[in-house]
């Protein structure tokens, strides 16, 4: 609706849309994915199987999905937001049910050719819904309590569902991305200040109560928190992984040990070397130069997204683009902090590089939205 307020004459139509795609962004995505192919080839010991080849096929599929999403006008996606959000919630429920039947924490739905993780989908659809919500909401009401509580509920509901799977990493990402959306939309600073203060207070209370009469958690829960925060207390479990990861990363040095020469990954000292810890292999084999280059590529992607968001006059477009950029940022920031030993191990993959179908597919679809916003922007 809001789009109609702008001039439509300059919007490209038909195949001309291709030319108006954000090509630098597309090329950046291809470069990052190529880094992923290279690393998957390396950790498989110089082989396209079992990881690099399927990953390339999925990336090709993902690019196609991105194109299709990009061709469709952005206002269509805005109108679909509620449906998309409800579908994701339904899928989360479905996983819950199937998981119960399947005895265990099942996070995916088997689509035959790939496994879809509804929690991945949720990250994008939540951003879409919140963008649509704030597009619809008059600016004056943004900071009114009743209109603040509604999006909070919209965020918390899927977060708790994901937490129950249990998937702490994705839950934190959902929470952070949702909060960021509200912040972009202009919710008053005071709310964020209050939440942060309350959070800090709660954490302080939990830790200060330890060993006193009014202890808030049970002893074993504290021990679990200890292990989570400082893996070296569990040297053969989580601590082993993070120690080996740091050794691999550090031993890479300035320029790395050479392609396929990383002893830590080649000799299996690295855990999950094709998924969550793939960055360490990159850092070991290509050193600081390689690791920093990837970081730079990621940063450029964020910059291009923010630029797109700032260029468009359409509120939904800019909010959805910023939300996706924040999501993407959280992905690699949490993953890199984790492998560098700055954050606890929570199981977040490196976007576009780690082996894994649904995360990449969903991310590319999300970038399709960014492309669509770019093509269908008001000029």
């Amino acid at each position: 609706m809001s789009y109609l307020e702008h001039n439509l004459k300059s919007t490209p139509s038909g195949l001309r849309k291709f030319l108006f795609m954000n090509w630098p962004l597309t090329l950046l995505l291809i470069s990052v994915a190529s880094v992923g192919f290279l690393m998957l080839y390396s950790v498989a010991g110089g082989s396209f199987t079992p990881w690099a080849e399927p990953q390339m096929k999925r990336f090709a599929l993902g690019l196609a999905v991105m194109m299709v999403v990009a061709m469709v006008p952005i206002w269509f996606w805005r109108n679909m937001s509620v449906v998309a959000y409800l579908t994701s919630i339904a899928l989360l429920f479905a996983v819950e049910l199937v998981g119960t039947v399947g005895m265990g924490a099942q996070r995916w739905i088997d689509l035959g050719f790939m496994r879809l993780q509804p929690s991945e989908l949720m990250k994008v659809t939540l951003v879409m819904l919140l963008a649509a919500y704030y597009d619809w909401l008059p600016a004056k009401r943004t900071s009114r309590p009743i209109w603040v509580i509604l999006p909070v509920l919209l965020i918390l509901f899927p977060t708790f569902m994901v937490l129950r799977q249990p998937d702490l990493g994705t839950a934190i990402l959902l929470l952070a991305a949702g909060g960021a959306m509200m912040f972009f939309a202009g919710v008053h600073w005071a709310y964020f200040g209050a939440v942060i203060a309350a959070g800090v207070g709660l954490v302080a209370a939990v830790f200060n109560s330890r060993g006193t009469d009014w202890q808030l958690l049970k002893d074993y829960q504290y021990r679990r928190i200890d292990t989570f925060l400082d893996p070296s207390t569990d040297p053969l479990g989580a601590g082993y992984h993070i120690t080996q990861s740091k050794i691999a990363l550090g031993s890479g040095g300035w320029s790395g040990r050479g392609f396929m020469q990383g002893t830590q990954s080649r000799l299996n000292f690295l855990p999950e070397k094709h998924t969550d810890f793939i960055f360490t292999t990159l850092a070991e084999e290509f050193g600081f130069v390689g690791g920093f280059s990837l970081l730079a590529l990621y940063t450029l992607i964020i910059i291009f997204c923010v630029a797109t968001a700032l260029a468009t006059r359409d509120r939904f477009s800019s909010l959805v683009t910023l939300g996706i950029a924040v999501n993407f940022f959280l992905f690699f920031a949490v993953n890199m902090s984790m492998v560098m030993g700055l954050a606890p191990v929570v199981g977040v993959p490196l976007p576009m590089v780690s082996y894994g179908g649904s995360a990449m597919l969903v991310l590319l679809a999300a970038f399709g939205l960014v492309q669509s916003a770019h093509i269908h922007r008001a000029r």
Partner: protein
Amino acid sequence: MKRNPKELEYTHRQVSRRALFVGGLQAAFVGGLAMRMRYMQVDQADEFRLLAEENRINIRLIAPARGELFDRNGKILGQNTPSYRIIIVREDAGDVEKVISDLSKLIYLDPEDLERARAEMRRAPAFLPITLADQVTWEEISKVAVNAPSLPGITPEVGLARHYPQMGDFAHVIGYVGPVSDYDLSQMEDPEPVLRIPRFQIGKVGLEAKREGLLRGRAGAKRVEVNAGGRVMRELSRREGDAGADLQLSVDADLQQYTQARLEGESASAVVIDCETGDLRAIVSAPSFDPNLFVRGISVADYKRLTDDPYRPLANKSVQGTYPPGSTFKMVTALAALEAGVVGPGDTSYCPGFHKVGNRRFHCWKRGGHGTVDLLLSLKRSCDVYYYDVAVKTGIDNISAMANKLGLGVRHDLPMSAVRRGLTPTQAWKERVHGEGWLVGDTANSSIGQGFMLASPLQLAVMSARIATGRAVTPRLVKSIDGVEQPSGAGEPLDINERNLRYIRNAMYAVSNDRRGTAYRSRIIEDAYRMAGKTGTSQVRNITKAERAAGVIRNKDLPWERRDHALFVCYAPFDKPKYAVAVVVEHGGGGSKAAAPVARDVMLQALYKGNPPLEAYPSKDRERIKEQQERLDQLRDRVTPSDGNDRA
């Protein structure tokens, strides 16, 4: 819902502001990540590189080859022979049980070994080789090798194992090796890492144990790259170890073998020492055992048989067995008396068959007595009374000091297990150990090598050599180490008057060569090799008064373990002593009957370096000796296999 441009403009600016704010936060975070990455990869790179190398590289030890053992003529006594074993790698085998059952159709697999292998397999990673059968024969290995295609995961392997081709002849001298046990490790302060190699063998007993440091050598090492599971990916570098030193013993394997065979059937010991160098030419304890049994790991049944044998095959009687020296000690008493100047060679004592010391009667072995005896006569006919008399005049401390001078009651430093010191009592010793004062009767007992007096066959041989040469001959077992000759045991001249020594030697000559000497029947006829000796018969029980009244029971009517020990010491040739021999036959009866003939045979064997001509023996013995030589030759062929590769 229409929105006015003003509101649009406001919201757009607000979004832009906040986007830039968040972007700033993100940029700061990315900067932080980059800094962290730089810190780890540039500033700390060396430390992490080191840690990665430590992860990756393992040092594996290469077992050194153990030094070999030779006799004085270069005959192999202890060697490393290829030992074949069959190993299985679980991950290559697939169905382990099927492979094992296929293998057991080809060769015999010990159920005990199999059980141990299965237990090992449950613990170890799948790629580690596990030994299924050790010490398999060449035939079995060939069978396995031929059928290799149908036995996945099974490999024959060759290693080195200790083998003693002389079987039992050197069991007490060399001892044996065996795998390092947890007990061995717990006994060591800081065990060398090489000892942790599975199935590494170390000396357990005897020379193998005492010269372990020389024989073991130094382990080599290889650097290998391993993965996180510990599997070896490739070898990076290799440094071979140093083999252990080869030891050449002073022992003559042929003489040793002859002596062992000659003592067959007895619980006995014999020592042949070279008077000129102190070399131990033979040092035998009978019966013996096959040390190879211990290398392989002796079975419970075999071990029980060895420990239950009343003749104690595991005991090394030549250095570990200490016996009352009996009359062989009389030379010591006589020398002590001569040196002390209390008697001269011509002084006499009267022997009525007993001697009163204090108010106790000490009997001579000859009830009727020897009449008037001087030094020569007393030794030749082994009169006890003369020594009771002389010893009381000399005093026990003088006698003990002389015994120590002649090598009794001192520990000879030989690289063998359980070398005993024996005992030469003194007044102070009895006061200290028994808390009682020394009695003059103790002196009488000691003077004829009874009572507290104890000596090993080795010490008796050393004593004879010292009397023969007048020098402090010291026994030497290791002749050379890696070809480097070890110091000779010829020794410095003893501080004993040569004239006094000559009196003793002449008396010993008479023992063997005078018609009335106690060892006359075991004399050597060959003039160039005349022998001087002394018999001894030591009591292992007290003869009670009642017994004496009833008439002394004849030795052969007693149960074996209560019979007297038979001893004989000698040296030859008389004019230019070359060898000294000591023989102790446990519970063998009289020294002249049981020990002297053995000593003579061994002595002749040593002098002639093989079977002596029959002319060396008194003519009436020759027929019997001829038979004995033939019998022993046969026995020696049977006892020791001709080559070391036959390891049935």
